[in-house]
């Protein structure tokens, strides 16, 4: 077990170093490319054009990428731990879909531009409503199956609501804006977005992180975990609410970004083992690395050489990388799922 401990520590340190390096690169990359020296000078003294570009434009974007990526990574690890299932991810509970409904509504009815306050607030409200809905449908002592079915129902309903909002959008421009927003992006996000999302993201880390020991006990199943002193109902509630806070705020600020929650825990299991408590921290760090790297990539790869300043959307990149990974994983787990092995 001690060798596992030290390999976990090494991995976490390496990921932290990678995060710092990617954060610096993220401050450098954009329409006005900066050298590392210029970027750091702009960050610390804030003077001149470099200071404005780095502090007002790229720093909020970088911090959001790190915080949101970490939230998705941790949410995925927590849900996989809670459900004892490596295929679990936040979208199972409908939180991102419901957040998308709230934000789309705001954009469609011109109550706000795509980049103002009201959108994230509506997104968070949507995610909280979806959780309220799950608790109402499934009841407080609900089984996992009932909770998952409730999540599936709400996710489908939220998808239909988003489609309805697109359908009834007052102007084609609003529909286009929603469609682009749904693809996920951190372009033009400001310090205000960061300040709105951060409290919810941090609250979600706390709610999820506190349950890490319970995830480890749950490897024995719910009955045995309960007999070890784990309050299963409270754990389930804290995780579902934590995921709603984190993913709701993340989706509200950045649009739909998928698959990081699914991938991050898998990437770290090879190094730290399958202990679901040990997976949480490196999965969060890996989520931060993945999303920051993806956000750098969208700035480096022009979406269309003929269009000016339109970036490839973040959600498109994470899904393009995530889906093949997901299929490969199902392929690998297939024998286990069929019960042929072991």
């Amino acid at each position: 077990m001690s060798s596992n401990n030290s390999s976990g520590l090494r991995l976490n340190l390496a990921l932290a170093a990678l995060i710092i390096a990617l954060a610096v690169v993220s401050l450098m990359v954009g329409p006005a490319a900066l050298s590392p020296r210029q970027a750091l000078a702009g960050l610390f003294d804030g003077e001149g054009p470099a200071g404005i570009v780095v502090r007002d434009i790229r720093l909020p974007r970088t911090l959001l990428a790190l915080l949101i990526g970490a939230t998705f990574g941790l949410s995925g690890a927590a849900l996989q731990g809670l459900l004892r299932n490596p295929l679990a991810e936040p979208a199972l509970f409908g939180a991102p879909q419901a957040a998308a409904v709230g934000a789309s509504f705001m954009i469609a009815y011109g109550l706000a531009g795509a980049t103002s306050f009201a959108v994230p607030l509506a997104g968070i409200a949507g995610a909280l409503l979806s959780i309220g809905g799950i608790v109402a449908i499934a009841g407080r002592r609900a089984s996992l199956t009932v909770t998952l079915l409730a999540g599936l129902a709400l996710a489908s309903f939220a998808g239909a609501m988003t489609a309805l909002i697109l359908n009834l959008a007052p102007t084609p421009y609003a529909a286009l804006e929603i469609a682009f927003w749904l693809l996920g992006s951190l372009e033009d996000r400001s310090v205000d977005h960061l300040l709105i999302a951060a409290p919810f993201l941090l609250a979600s880390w706390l709610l999820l992180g506190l349950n890490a020991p319970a995830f480890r006990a749950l490897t024995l199943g719910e009955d045995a975990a309960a007999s070890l002193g784990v309050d299963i109902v409270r754990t389930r509630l804290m995780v579902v609410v934590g995921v709603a806070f984190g993913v709701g705020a993340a989706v509200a600020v950045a649009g739909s970004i998928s698959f990081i929650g699914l991938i991050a825990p898998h990437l770290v299991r090879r190094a730290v083992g399958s202990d679901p408590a040990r997976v949480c921290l490196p999965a969060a760090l890996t989520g931060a690395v993945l999303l920051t790297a993806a956000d750098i990539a969208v700035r480096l790869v022009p979406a269309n050489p003929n269009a000016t300043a339109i970036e490839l959307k973040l959600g498109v990149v994470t899904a393009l990388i995530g889906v093949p990974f997901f299929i490969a994983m199902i392929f690998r787990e297939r024998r286990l799922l069929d019960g042929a092995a072991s």
Partner: protein
Amino acid sequence: MNDAAPKLRAVGVTVRLGGAPVVDEAALDLRSGELVVLVGPNGAGKTTLVRALAGLLPAEGRVEIDGRPLSSLSARERARQIAYLPQGHIFHWPMPVAAVVALGRHAHADAFSSLSDADRAAVGRALSATATETFATRSVTTLSGGERARVALARALATEAAVLLADEPTVSLDPRHQLVVMGLLRDAARAGGAVLAVVHDLALAARFADRVAVMERGRIIVDAAPIEALSAARIAAAFGVEAVMVDTGDGPIPIARRPI
């Protein structure tokens, strides 16, 4: 068997699942040093009773540990008093055996710090009692059924609780492992534990139990020494099976011959 105050006492325990009582006014005492085997036909309510005794199900009636109502204990206190080994030996993640056994210490340690020396010592005793230390670093999902059963039992033993409740610990094991597991449960009782095991094999029950409780339709209908509780007449009444008694030298052992 002895007159000491029971470690665990259950009186009038009733559990309703969807209206009808699955456990109906069941009463059972477990004393330290004793291995009690609970037998009964499928659907008699054995698992439900064991889960109620473990405090995992809301139940009417009284369940007491050392005279204190189980419901007055916090979940962690209860977990230190009662070890529960559910059916099936479930391990969802491929964790190393030693880490799984260490879960038995969950309610003892601060969950966020590493194991104390006392916790490590308890894990070591559980590994050595079950002869699982030779594969302590292997992943549980690579083990055979018999090895998994021993690891699951080691996890429960590592709790070092005064009461051990084991639900069908010998199911799907080969004959040798059935004997090994029953021997380990008897050792746990000899070491001072109050042990209850649900077992389907009447011969195993007769050989290892200090007392046998027979459950039928939610009630404990007999609670006595094996020779009395597992007589041919009782077996016929409770299980609808004709049994013959075979003396193996360790006392008479019932062998089920044919359904009545």
